[in-house]
């Protein structure tokens, strides 16, 4: 075992692969952070749509969630990869394909979390807000969602960690994230055990610090 291969390629793996600065358009973080923000934003709409009273809003949202939760992410990435260039009649960079696939896919999971969070808010809160004269939109924005968000924190963190790990699948279509960077180095150096163990540790440090941070946050907000 020879871990000097890690030391000599450290900059490429971390700066190019994990963060995303370098000759390639890539980076795990550069993909994960917008995917989390946009996925959650779309998830809020889908979660609320699933709770809508009007069936023409509720039904499409339900189908959306059930469809994407029943299909592997790899399949969704391939769908976007083939479909979007056909639809737009122009080539899309890997970054765009990966980001679109993650946002669409993860929004289904975020939607379920939002729905569960909203449902966890006591019924009396809505009734009290209505009695005070708030409109339905204001009730949702000022009374229900803030409380729901607090209840959602543990599941949101879990899903964020899942999404962070899922971004490794973007390497399948050639996006240069941490996993792809390790593959590129391995093709030249042929040190698979050392390289893949190293990126496993890097991923672990990222996810573990996220969950530690979340636990602290939970204790403070609880």
């Amino acid at each position, binding site marked *: 075992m020879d871990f000097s291969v890690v030391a000599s390629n450290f900059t490429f793996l971390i700066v190019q692969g994990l963060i995303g600065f370098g000759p390639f358009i890539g980076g795990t973080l550069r993909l994960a952070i917008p995917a989390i923000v946009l996925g959650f934003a779309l998830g809020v709409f889908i979660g609320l749509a699933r709770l809508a009273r009007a069936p023409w809003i509720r039904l499409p949202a339900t189908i959306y969630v059930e469809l994407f939760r029943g299909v*592997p992410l790899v*399949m969704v990435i391939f769908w976007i990869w083939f479909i979007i260039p056909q639809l737009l009649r122009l080539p899309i960079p890997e970054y765009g394909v990966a980001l679109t696939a993650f946002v669409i896919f993860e929004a289904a999971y975020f939607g379920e979390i939002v729905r569960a969070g909203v449902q966890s808010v006591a019924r009396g809160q809505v009734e009290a807000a209505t009695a005070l004269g708030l409109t339905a939109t204001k009730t949702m924005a000022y009374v229900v969602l803030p409380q729901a968000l607090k209840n959602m924190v543990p599941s949101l963190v879990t899903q964020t960690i899942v999404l962070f790990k899922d971004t*490794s699948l973007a390497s399948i279509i050639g996006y240069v994230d941490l996993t792809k960077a390790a*593959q590129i180095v*391995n093709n030249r150096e042929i040190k*698979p055990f050392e*390289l893949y163990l190293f990126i*496993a540790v890097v991923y672990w440090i990222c996810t573990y610090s996220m969950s530690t941070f979340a636990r602290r946050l939970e204790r403070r907000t609880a």
Partner: protein
Amino acid sequence: MNYTFNWSVLWSGQSGQWLLQGLITTLQLSALAWVLAVALGILAGALRTVPLAPLRWGATSYVEFFRNVPLLVWMFFWYFGVPPLLPRGAQDWLFSHGLEFWAGTIALGVYHGARMSEVIRSGIGAIPRTQFEASLAMGLTTFQAYRLVILPVALRLIVPPGTNESLNLLKNSSVALTISVAELTFQTRQIETYTAKAIEALTAGTLIYLALCLSIATIMARVERHYAIPGLISRTTAG
């Protein structure tokens, strides 16, 4: 959009056979990995609750390390990283018996074992501590208490989250295409490559995954009703 559909590519030529083979490989891979995951999950999940610190730490390190790293990295690790370190004889056997399939099974099973153990631990955590104490007071050893009292109840409690996790395993088996296991997603890609009909091929693969997930969920809902412990859990309308 300028695309001519040609659904007949799915049943002309070899496509149908490829899809069937892919489905069989997906099921084999998932079933073997599932057995491994459940065994590891029960072991690690139970060890994390025993009153013996070194065992708890060992199990905790396994779970925290394996479930916090992407499955894809584990696929590469078990497929490219581990075989060169094995003895010559084992290497030869693996290379002539489908290394990618076994590496995929181990990667999937060990990764989901760590995730499964969290489900099992939560099941054990839902059982009142007094049950364990009562078992010891009756003269059972710790091992007997887990085998005869704690685990049978915990396993009945965790059918719904266990099903969810099993479906995750089935869907994640698609990641094995990266180490060229010829499972369903791999075969879907193959049809696309040969026929240049992406939408038809992807639709077929997607529908098969959906049908698999739906039918497993339906079967498990029945199992859940059968094994539910009366009066212990209030059945919620899980989606």
